[in-house]
């Protein structure tokens, strides 16, 4: 019986040790698509590499990649002839103006790093709304739409009313970059107090006129303080000081809104938010906001007027 037991133990040992089934991992270098899509580089790819990737560590996807986008929207890719005009306009209006007000490393460090370009608008069939520029992911990625209709003065047959798409693009970028700034250094708490009782998740049902009457630059600014801040910065930079002043002074209704706001109060709120933002840019980033505003507006005028 003893020998039987020994044999039994031996069998158990064999069973335990014999079944190691470690396989080699295989050739991992061969995994398709590892490290991103590859294609033969053309002049556009070289322009992006030299003008944005090398100096600013910024990547641009102008070739269609569905997985960067909403999966249920009908979209079309960009026309190649628009890629460089769009990107060089962005560079002039956004990167170069901030760089001029700060230093060479500022935009390399803080600038949004990943742009996705789409030719058509992004229609939401359920609501009928169109998304023209947006979707930032953690201050890194910005998707821009309707760029097949991007026009500047350089476009043959350009008239000033063709500037709509370009303005949307600049507004989007300034908005998203304002988010980057306040995520690095938060704006003063006093900013949130100016309009604190008016932020609402129901902002889509508020008209622009109603938003103005409450002391906001857009209805989206009513969604939360962060977006109020970003919309204010974007609006002031892309409109310029003269137009912003005219906008504020133009709020002249009689009586009060449903929330009890008068025109005087609405104007005060906008002016207060403006002064907080100007102070924030100076203290947190050492940027002269009005100088940046003039630069941005001049860069836009050079392209669009």
């Amino acid at each position: 019986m003893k020998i039987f037991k020994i044999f039994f133990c031996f069998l158990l040992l064999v069973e335990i040790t014999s079944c190691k089934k470690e396989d080699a991992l295989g050739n991992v270098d061969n995994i398709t698509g590892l490290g991103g899509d590859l294609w033969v580089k053309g002049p556009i790819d070289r322009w992006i590499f030299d003008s944005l990737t090398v100096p600013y560590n910024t990547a641009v996807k102008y070739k269609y990649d569905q997985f960067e986008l909403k999966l249920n929207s009908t979209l079309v890719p960009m026309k190649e002839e628009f890629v460089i005009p769009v990107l060089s306009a962005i560079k002039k209006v956004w990167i170069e103006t901030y760089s001029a007000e700060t230093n060479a490393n500022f935009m390399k460090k803080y600038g949004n790093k990943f742009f996705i370009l789409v030719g058509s608008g992004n229609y939401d069939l359920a609501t009928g709304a169109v998304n023209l520029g947006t979707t930032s992911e953690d201050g890194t990625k910005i998707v821009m739409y309707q760029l097949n209709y991007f026009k500047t003065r350089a476009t043959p047959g350009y008239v000033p009313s063709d500037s709509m798409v370009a303005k949307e693009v600049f507004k989007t970028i300034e908005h998203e970059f304002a988010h980057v700034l306040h995520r690095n250094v938060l704006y003063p708490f006093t900013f949130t107090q100016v309009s604190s009782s008016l932020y609402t998740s129901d902002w889509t049902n508020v008209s622009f006129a109603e938003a103005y009457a409450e002391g906001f630059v857009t209805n989206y600014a009513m969604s939360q303080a962060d977006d109020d801040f970003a919309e204010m910065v974007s609006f002031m930079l892309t409109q310029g000081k003269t137009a912003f002043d005219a906008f504020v002074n133009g709020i002249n209704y009689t009586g009060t809104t449903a929330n009890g706001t008068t025109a005087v109060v609405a104007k005060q709120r906008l002016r207060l938010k403006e002064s907080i933002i100007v102070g924030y840019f100076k203290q947190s980033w050492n940027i002269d906001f009005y100088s940046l505003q003039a630069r941005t507006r001049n860069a836009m005028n050079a392209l669009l007027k």
Partner: protein
Amino acid sequence: MKRILLYIVVIFSVISSCKKDDSTIFQQSPDERLNEALTKYQAQLSGAQNGWKAVLFPAGGGSYSFYFKFSDSNRVRMFSDFDSTTATTLKESSYRLKAIQQPSLIFDTYSYIHLLSDPNENVVVRSIVNQGAVGVGLVSDYEFYFDSTTTDTIKLVGRFNGSKAVLTRATAQEATAYNSGQLAAGLNINKILTYFKRLTVGSQQFDIQVKPVDHTITFTYLGANGVLQTFTTGYYLILGGITLLNPLTVGTLTITGFNNMQWNATTETITTTVSNTVSTISGIVVPVKVDIGAPKRWWDFAVANGNDYWFSGKGFHVNGVDDAYGLAGLRSGTNTYYYLVYWPSYDPGNDFFGPIFLNAAQTGLTLQYGTGPNTPTYTTDGRAIFTQLYTYGTHPATGPAALTRAKLYNASGYYFVQTGATTYDMVSASDGKAWVTWQW
């Protein structure tokens, strides 16, 4: 006994547990096979010296033809039968092959193939690229996975909407023909300006109507028993002509398409080979069979349904031009043109014909002036002839409204074609090159 059972179990588990054979059905790993497939497809696409001719069937309907020439450096040049420009001007864009869920071909920058998918724009920018709905387009695709391939054929399926495409290897002659613009030959049909176009194949006659918007063609002809028949099918352009999606069979004649279409500018006719027979397509005034009752049916319908009016947004189409008289720009004081109406029995004994205007506040419609035709005269050959009895308001003597009025009173009158339950086309009987589409 229990112990023996235990030993048996252990012995069996030793024997069976050590099977180390992990060979798979395939010799290579999935990645190796995927790379191999992509390399194979790449070699096949760019290896075709003369390119590929293709037919794309959008999921939303219709059929469109293309010519693709793929390079080995992610560039593709193409023609398309979308319109006269895309059929004759080669356009270069980008493509890539990618392993997504299946090996896929992606046309990744904008070119002719995207015209079908384009969602159109009506916010900020207004741009109607194709006739599909805003936000959707023609429900087509530009990302495809490889369904099946043979040496000379590649079948693709759209990844987003499931459109189908078939690529066929082109010959050297075909490549030359594409590059010399022969894909546009089928578009010659639109150079014939009459409403009715007559195709004559031997002794058989057809009226054909081509709708470039949804790529359909309708044949109207007299069947063996003398009864009017209609046949509608999709089509796409091929080199030198048109191919029908479904063939038309009449007696012993089977029509699969039109080949060698040649436009003769002097006679304004097309010579074409149909079913191996040299045939002609020419503009005509009188259709194969006139719907003799149509004019009266049209007039009576309005009276019977609340004595209301027929309207047309664009007014007269003349010699190939929509809104030929420029009604869209018509003004009367501060009122703007809204649509053209024909109002049967507007007053006892006469009708009303003229523009209706939108008031300056855009809150209501207003009649400013018009002409009062007699109740139409119906001829035995199916025409309605209009004559003037009365004038409403101060009718302009020149301009769009005056031209439109003069056209109505053409002495030859008009044929009527019922195109739907409440739609009629009113076609000039003098030359067949002018018509109005009436809606209810």
